[in-house]
């Protein structure tokens, strides 16, 4: 059981290093974006990890409400925290990339707005859990918010897309970017690396959660 986190952490570290090399050294600058394209090798994987976390919250919240096993709640809680972390990283990366490439920190782009909304919803889920009267109730209520939030993701995304595009032409038109093989490789390596980082953090956080639960169970008479 203790071997798995070590292996996962090691593999994540190696892949992150490989991803850094592939992203900073091996891949060429983009024809349009120049070196700024390298931000994408971090930005896209963090957004991907954020969606993985949202998916995890959705599935484990349903399982927790259905089966009531504490482990599901530990995973859901940990994944909710990671969802806020990775949506924040994706937002930061997107804005840092947007400033030089789009010329503005923030565009009213569907993906940016959806990510910001996700960040707020899952932060609210954490607040509900913390402010609930007791631990068990907090777990159930946070699971409910998690399920509603995850179900809302496609609705929010498409409503923002249609809201922006039906009335005004997109202010920024990005040409079809054809990617060279080294760039695809850099993106894929980083995607895999971030997935492993996500799984590693999730595993460690769940372990911590179990220890905390055991401690508070021991403290109660």
């Amino acid at each position, binding site marked *: 059981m203790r071997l798995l986190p070590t292996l996962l952490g090691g593999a994540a570290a190696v892949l992150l290093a490989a991803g850094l090399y592939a992203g900073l050294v091996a891949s060429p600058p983009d024809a349009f974006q120049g070196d700024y394209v390298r931000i994408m090798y971090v930005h896209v994987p963090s957004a991907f990890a954020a969606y993985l976390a949202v998916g995890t919250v959705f599935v484990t919240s349903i399982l927790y409400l259905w089966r009531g096993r504490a482990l599901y709640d530990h995973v859901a809680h940990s994944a909710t925290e990671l969802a806020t972390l990775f949506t924040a990283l994706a937002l930061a990366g997107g804005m840092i990339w947007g400033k030089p490439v789009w010329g503005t920190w923030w565009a009213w782009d569907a993906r940016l707005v959806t990510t910001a909304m996700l960040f707020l919803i899952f932060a609210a889920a954490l607040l509900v859990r913390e402010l609930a*009267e007791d631990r068990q109730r907090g777990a159930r209520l946070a699971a409910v918010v998690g399920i509603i939030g995850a179900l809302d993701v496609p*609705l929010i995304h498409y409503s923002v897309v*249609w809201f922006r595009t039906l009335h005004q032409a997109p202010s920024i038109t990005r040409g079809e970017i054809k990617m060279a093989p080294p760039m695809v490789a850099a993106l894929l390596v980083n995607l895999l690396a971030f997935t492993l980082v996500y799984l590693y953090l999730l595993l460690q956080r769940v372990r911590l959660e179990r220890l905390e639960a055991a401690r508070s169970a021991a403290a109660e008479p």
Partner: protein
Amino acid sequence: MNAWRRTVALVRKDLLLEWRGRETITTMGGLALLVVLLLGLVLGGEAARAPAILWVALLLAATLGVSRWTQAEVEQQALETLLLYPGSREHLYWGTWAALTLLLMTLLGLLLAALGLLFNIDLWARLPLLLGAGFLGIAGLCAVGTLFAALLVHVRGRELLMPLLLLPVALPVLLGSVRLTEAILSGAPGGGLWLGVLAVFDILFLLVAPVLYAVVMEEA
């Protein structure tokens, strides 16, 4: 039949309480009118802005009303008594949902009248369409609002958390209702699409929220 009568009794109770005090509708109406006046003043009072201003005002006022609604239940310990009654808790959900929907429809009617005056729009001919579109938006808003109100009963600082939960989740309702209202008022294209968005939101959350409501109301 029994389920139907229980739901109706709950709606009647909620609306009767509201009618006697008229606290919620007064504060909601006041806030909504303030938002309309402030936004109209700072953004300019062109008729084209009216749908966006209407729905932002309604949504903000709704967060106030939805959390106020269950607070009254808790303060007077009505909820505990209601939960003691045997049978399914889903009727409680539908009763609260229907009462909240009626309350917000009343608010919508008042706001439409205010907008017609303040923004100089002729609403009479399109009033049934506007109310119909408004109902689609409000039904979805109340579907999640009723659930969140029940959820926050056992959470500290529930009035503070309600906007944080309700506003981001209800974003599709805001966007859909704004565009649909625009389509009705000015014949802008895309009305059918937004009708679909609102319908999907309504159906999804009116199916899911009652189930989760039962979970929330279960004693942990």
